[in-house]
């Protein structure tokens, strides 16, 4: 054990797993003691979904160095795939947990496939151009899902792109009704399942980062040309990170979607993508535990300020700007350094005087 913990990466990873597990246990104990209000309980599952989103986006932005502005699109694909799969399997599989797991993998695989499709053109581009293409894909996905009609009846699934084309037999049900979205979703997500998904995500991402693949991905981020010249297949590794990230985002989407009774495609818009990006940047690029913590704090912060009503989001904006200025601005950094050195100098001076007085 001691030998294990002496390795820095292993130690950081162990801390990450421990923090998440302890947080989960504390919430479970509080919840079983009845100390959590129903509102707080309602935030737990979406929080898990956002943590998974933040960690998966961090793989892309922090580790891989690719700016993505359309991550919510993958979440959306996952969510609606999961909703359809869960509804189809309702009479086939009895256990909610098993059904949720199957739906999650279905949503993840679907999102991963789209990630692959999007990756083919997007990964030819670099920097801001890649960012705009991911933004565009996010908007396209939102637009297409928002006009998708899926119905389920005794004969099977019917899919169409216009309102009138889905004609259901008696007893059939519209699973996805265009702009109205999915309604009457059966809530089968739960906080423990959210916790399991977080652990799974951490396991996948942390192992990927510390593997041969991960080192290659980081080499590509730090210097693409140098990495290419030592024989790293840049596109293949970027694609791998992209697909894994999309897959995890899709699973998070399923968790999120199967937790609320109605869901519209417009939920997964540019603003959601941006919010997740904010989690990643404030948590620290490439820092997985940082993403988990900042997603938690930033998700709870606006909810906790609900009492302030109108001022809430304006305060959030101001806090965001100030935090960014304080953590990144060279001016502020120099200022803090100067204060620190002057305090240290003063302490030293006082110490010397004290010695002299003796």
């Amino acid at each position, binding site marked *: 054990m001691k030998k294990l913990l002496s390795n820095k990466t292993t130690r950081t990873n162990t801390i990450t797993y421990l923090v998440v597990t302890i947080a989960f246990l504390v919430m479970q104990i509080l919840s079983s003691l009845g100390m959590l209000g129903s509102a707080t309980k309602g935030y737990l599952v979406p929080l898990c979904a956002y943590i998974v989103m933040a960690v998966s986006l961090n793989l892309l*932005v922090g580790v891989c160095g690719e*700016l993505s502005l359309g991550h919510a699109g993958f979440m959306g694909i996952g969510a609606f795939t999961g909703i359809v799969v869960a509804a189809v399997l309702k009479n086939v599989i009895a256990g909610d947990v098993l059904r949720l797991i199957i739906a999650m993998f279905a949503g993840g695989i679907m999102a991963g496939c789209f990630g692959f499709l999007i990756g083919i*053109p997007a990964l*030819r*581009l670099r920097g*801001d*151009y890649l*960012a*705009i*293409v991911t*933004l*565009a*894909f996010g*908007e*396209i996905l*939102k*637009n*297409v899902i*928002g*006009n998708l009609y899926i119905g389920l009846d005794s004969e099977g699934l019917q899919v169409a792109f216009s309102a009138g084309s889905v004609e259901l037999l008696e007893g059939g049900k519209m699973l996805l009704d265009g702009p109205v979205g999915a309604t009457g979703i059966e809530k089968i997500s739960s906080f423990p399942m959210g916790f399991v998904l977080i652990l799974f995500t951490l396991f996948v991402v942390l192992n990927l980062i510390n593997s041969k693949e991960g080192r290659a991905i980081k080499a590509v981020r730090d210097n693409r*040309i*140098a990495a290419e010249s030592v024989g790293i297949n840049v596109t293949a590794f970027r694609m791998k990170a992209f697909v894994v990230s999309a897959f995890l985002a899709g699973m998070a989407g399923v968790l999120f979607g199967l937790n609320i009774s109605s869901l519209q495609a417009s939920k997964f818009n*540019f603003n959601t993508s*941006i919010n997740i*990006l*904010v989690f990643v*940047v*404030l948590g620290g*690029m490439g820092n997985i535990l940082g993403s988990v913590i900042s997603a938690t704090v930033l998700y709870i912060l606006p909810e906790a300020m609900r009492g302030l009503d*109108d*001022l809430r*989001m*304006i305060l*959030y*904006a*101001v806090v*965001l*700007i100030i935090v*960014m*200025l304080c*953590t*990144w*601005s*060279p*001016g*502020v950094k120099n200022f803090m350094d100067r204060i620190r050195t002057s305090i240290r100098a003063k302490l030293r001076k006082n110490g010397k005087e004290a010695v002299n007085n003796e």
Partner: protein
Amino acid sequence: MQVLQYLINGVSIGSVYAIIALGYTMVYGIAKMLNFAHGDVIMVGAYISFCVTNYMGLPAIVSILAAMVVCTVLGILIEKLAYKPLRGTSSLAVLITAIGVSYFLQNAAQLIWGTAPKSFTSIVTFKPFSFADGALVITGEVIITIAVSILVMVGLTLFTGKTRMGKAMRAVSEDRDAAQLMGINVNQTISMTFAIGSALAAIAGVLLCSTVPTLQPTTGSMPGIRAFTAAVIGGIGSIPGAMLGGILLGIIETFSKKYISTEFSDAIVFAVLILILLVKPTGLLGKQVQEKV
């Protein structure tokens, strides 16, 4: 005749996108940052113009000037307070700060003017022109929008080509350090860029709301994203590119709404963007920069 009608409407809405895209592209060219708060400056401009006409009863032209002045000051303030301290650091940090500014502007507007949409009175008072027995109708808004955008584009081209400040801008966008060594005041140049971009955003806001007369705190975001797309299609950083991209985007949007599908017009516009970037990875008129090791 119908095709001509759609073409004119497309050029009109495209001109508005072009004016907004100019703000994005100039700021990107000089400060190398994606200013996501630009769309919200449009909204502020429209609100100022709305207040001046509706609450103070002043004529339209005064309201436009007032909107331009307020937005210019706002643009310079945003740059000084939020972006300048982060200059030279990670572009992602600046991007997130810009998003913070965007949230701030939207929520401040919501606090001041409320969420309920206001109906914007068009600045154009004359009647639409009708040709060929009403088969082709050109509204006053269309004429004013196209005229103003031509004026803006010619003015901006002359400004960047002929004046000292314009040349300084081009120099800074080419190589900031070298420009500084040549005695150009980089801070002043960047402030000037934000000032011009924001003044243009005010004009765009008034034109946009004259055509689509609902005004609310989120009015600026979608046109902002569209205009950003237009700037990228044209090649971000290039002024003629922004104009070309804007007008192209307007035409594509109008025609796809009419001939393909209203519901999928968003998807079509963004798909065109991706197709163009696949063929020309730096946009239509963007420079292909050779990478050096």
